[in-house]
């Protein structure tokens, strides 16, 4: 079995460490298993079932580090991988940014593992997909979708006393439904730690509503519009700004760099309503409680009332700058507001409801200027009502500028970014002066 318990992982790592002769030795052990089903045209197209287990050993002499890995676990192989990493370390160039490993740390248990998700089988996946395909067929549409579940664990130990272990599950489902004429398309995506929260039938019904509702789209002039972004659209736009890295800001090559030098830490960069933080203990979006280099993760505000509250400092950069290291976010939650989606529409004189964004790419990293397009359900709003579906449009906009123009926020939902497949907690949002630059005929 590629998924080891905490005790099994600890025993194995201790044994590996006993072979070490280096100044510093860090070991990582990871395993995962899971499966997926992909559908198209209301039938299964591909499906898979994958499992792996691997061990990586890093040995350091002075500031010279070597890493080697293996996926065999008899004693001779374990000793071999330690020796090999030590030989590689002797050959390696010195790394002036090398930091000594951390000593023992205290970590809270995470809530990232769910038994039901771990127990998924090819049959249970097939049943969930069959429910989705039924909804699509009932609506007279063609579905293309993807269901994937993963169970994984990662453990690390070093010769200075650090040990950390985490086990997690994840299930994601996405579906695109299109009509036979190719004139309507809808989409839904869901991601959970606990599979019992995933309703593939309900999600497909929403995609079907969007598909049928988007038929007969009309062209409107590109330009600046008030937009209501559903969480799936907003999160993809915002994902590009979640790094919050101090080093690139200090170096003058980030949207968080200050003109004349330094960072924008402490500056007001967005609307008062914007609060963005990470919290591994969030019940809806649990995350690991320790960072890759073994630091405990705690609730951290990155943007508070529109002000840049914290930047992440690697241990090396923190030492150089004389501050405390702060690992980057392991999840992202944005606080919402009191408005429902219906209220946002009702209060809009002239605007656009955006279900999803697509193919977002960086145009200018200095201001995080991005371009991309709407997709799978774009609707024109006039005098507080959805009037008609509209053709998709390309936008050229920055999430930083966008979050300066917040009119209202709704209730945060767990939403998947359609590019990274990561989950975030993001509210629907009403934004003024969002810039559309051209029309697209794509459906």
């Amino acid at each position, binding site marked *: 079995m590629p998924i080891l318990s905490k005790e099994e992982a600890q025993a194995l790592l201790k044994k590996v460490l006993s072979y070490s002769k280096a100044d510093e030795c860090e*070991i*990582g052990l990871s395993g995962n298993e899971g499966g*997926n089903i*992909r559908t*198209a*045209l209301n*039938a299964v197209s*591909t*499906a*898979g*079932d*994958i499992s*792996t287990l*691997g061990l*990586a050993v890093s040995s350091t002499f002075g500031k010279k580090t070597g*890493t*080697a890995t293996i*996926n065999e676990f008899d004693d001779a192989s374990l000793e071999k991988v330690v020796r090999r990493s030590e030989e590689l370390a002797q050959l*390696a*160039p010195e790394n*002036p940014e090398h930091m000594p490993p951390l000593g023992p740390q205290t970590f809270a248990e995470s809530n990232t593992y769910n038994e039901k998700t771990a127990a998924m089988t*090819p*049959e249970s996946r*097939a049943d969930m997909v069959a429910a989705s395909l039924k909804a699509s067929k009932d609506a007279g549409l063609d579905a*293309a979708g993807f269901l994937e579940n993963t169970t994984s664990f*990662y453990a690390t130990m070093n010769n200075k006393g650090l040990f950390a272990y985490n086990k997690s599950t994840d299930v994601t489902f*996405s579906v*695109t439904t*299109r009509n036979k004429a190719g004139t309507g*398309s809808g989409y839904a995506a869901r991601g959970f730690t606990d599979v019992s929260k995933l309703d593939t039938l309900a999600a497909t019904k929403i995609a079907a509503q969007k598909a049928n509702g988007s038929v007969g789209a009309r062209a409107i002039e590109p330009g600046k519009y008030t937009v209501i972004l559903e969480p799936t659209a907003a999160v993809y736009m915002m994902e590009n700004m*979640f*790094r919050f890295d101090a080093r690139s800001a200090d170096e*003058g*090559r980030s949207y968080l*760099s200050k*003109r*004349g*030098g330094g960072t924008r830490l402490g500056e007001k960069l967005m609307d008062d309503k914007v609060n963005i933080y990470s919290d591994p203990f969030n019940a809806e979006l649990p995350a690991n409680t320790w960072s*890759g280099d073994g630091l405990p993760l705690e609730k951290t505000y990155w943007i508070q009332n529109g002000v840049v509250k914290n930047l992440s400092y*690697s241990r090396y950069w923190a030492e150089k700058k004389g501050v405390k290291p702060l*690992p*980057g976010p392991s*999840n992202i939650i944005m606080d919402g507001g009191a408005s429902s989606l219906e209220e946002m529409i009702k209060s809009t004189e002239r605007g656009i409801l955006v279900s999803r964004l697509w*193919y977002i*790419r*960086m*145009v200018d990293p*200095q*201001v995080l*200027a991005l*371009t991309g397009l709407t*997709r799978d359900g774009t609707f024109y709003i006039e005098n507080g009502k959805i009037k008609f579906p509209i053709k998709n449009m*390309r936008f*050229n906009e920055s999430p930083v500028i966008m979050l300066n123009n917040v009119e209202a926020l709704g209730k945060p939902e767990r939403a998947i970014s359609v590019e*990274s497949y*990561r989950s975030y907690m993001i509210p629907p949002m009403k934004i003024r002066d969002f810039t559309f630059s*051209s029309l*697209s*005929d*794509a459906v």
Partner: protein
Amino acid sequence: MKRRNFIYLSGVGASALMLSNLPSYGTPIDPLQSLETVDVRIKKELADVALNTAKSKGASYADIRIGRYLNQAVITRETRVLNVANAESFGVGVRVLVNGCWGFAASNVVTKDGVAKTAERAVAVAKANAKIGGAPVQLAPQKGYGEVSWKTPIEKNAFEVPIKEKVDLLLAANGVALAGGANFVNSTILAINEQKYFASTDGSYIDQDIHRLYPNFSVTKIDAAKGAFETRAALSSPVGMGYEYLTPTASEKMQGVVTRYRNRYDMMEDMKNATKNAAEKVNAKTVEPGKYDLVLDPSHLWLTIHESVAHPTELDRVLGYEANYAGTSFLNLDKLKSGNFKFGSPNMNIVADKNQKGSLGAVGYDDEGVKPKEWQIVKDGTLVNFQAIRDQAHMIGLNESQGCCYAQTWADVQFQRMPNVSLQPGKTPLSVDDMIKKVDKGIYIVGNGSFSIDQQRYNFQFGGQLFYEIKGGKIVGMLNDVAYQATNQEFWNSLAAVCDERDYRLGGAFNDGKGQPSQSNAVSHGSSTALFKGVNVINTKRRIG
């Protein structure tokens, strides 16, 4: 093409130990280990175990890929080596057809017992899914080739070149940038070796040794007072070659306002030029939006070909198989069958292949045991074909696969991926200088930059690395904040001229993304410099606050 991975979450790790969690890099290994290979006799024995197990459990067809995928990455910034990573990924993937439905399973346990269990799991997956129903898979016939092999024709195996030689080259190049006034410089050499063994119940046992190389860098110039910074990336290409690509060769240089490269690359020279260019970009004139004639260098045009021609002619996209991820296509079977769909002007001739020497797509056999073909996709501007594999060939009336099936590793199921897709050079002699002389108001674009295109490939926007303003047939200076937006068919119908074969070069993508779970593919796109008339150019400049 996939975007750069600029999303950072500490939970998914930046440390060397977490490298094993990055599927594209496998697990780190000793550099010397990369020179060991697995005995082909052992692979055949294992393959037979898997194929026999699959057949005995009810598979009508089965194939197995035993793959050893090696990556080496040497990564530096300024005067420092950030990482030297040697990674290996070794395992098996078994694909089976049971009751007309595909099943796939993969494992890193490469023993007789391990591959038999993997074959059993693949059959179980197929059986579970067959219950859902749908049209049964139809495989185009494919003869078995028996025991055969193929190797990328390299002159110098990059994995045999000592790490020190690579580090010395990168740090020397970084030194050129720093001496020239650059604030930051990052440089890398990536090498890939796919040692892959394919066997199928059709009777093929194919052993292949595929090599790819990608040297790259980025120079940054900062103007702190203005709060501005500009970067200039290398004008190298990822190639299906060995380390010989990094041997500067005068005859492979294309001289002009900036030197560009064909089959050999001069990193030191390009770094010097890049440092100068980055400083020029900081002070370059911002573009006046409007209609311009665009002269597009192959180091830029490859990406436009990739996104606007190669992707929409993938048959799986055309049919709706990629609807939930990469998208569908503005092309359809009716447009192909009509025989008169004008994708572009008569200057547009597009050819697909997996044979071009030095290209990223070149293989002896694809990942379902088919020898690749060369075929025309657009002929004199008219759409004439798509890209299809064994289970798709019948859908466009073909009786055999075109040989463009690929899986990124043993752990991923193979499916239709684009081959090299290239614009053929013009037949009339035409140099880049002569082309520029014909342009009154235009922009000469070198190198690829930002890119975005809709899910049916109608509307796109492309940036670049270097933008030179052309006025009255002459280059008059550098521009900044340039991107062009166009509708696909309109753009290709504005293709007014293509330079001749003397200017033909390959560009390419090391990491083209498609599929769920997403898989990377490496492909080249060749062209000569091309002229597009009256394209809409926008100014991308924005300010915060």
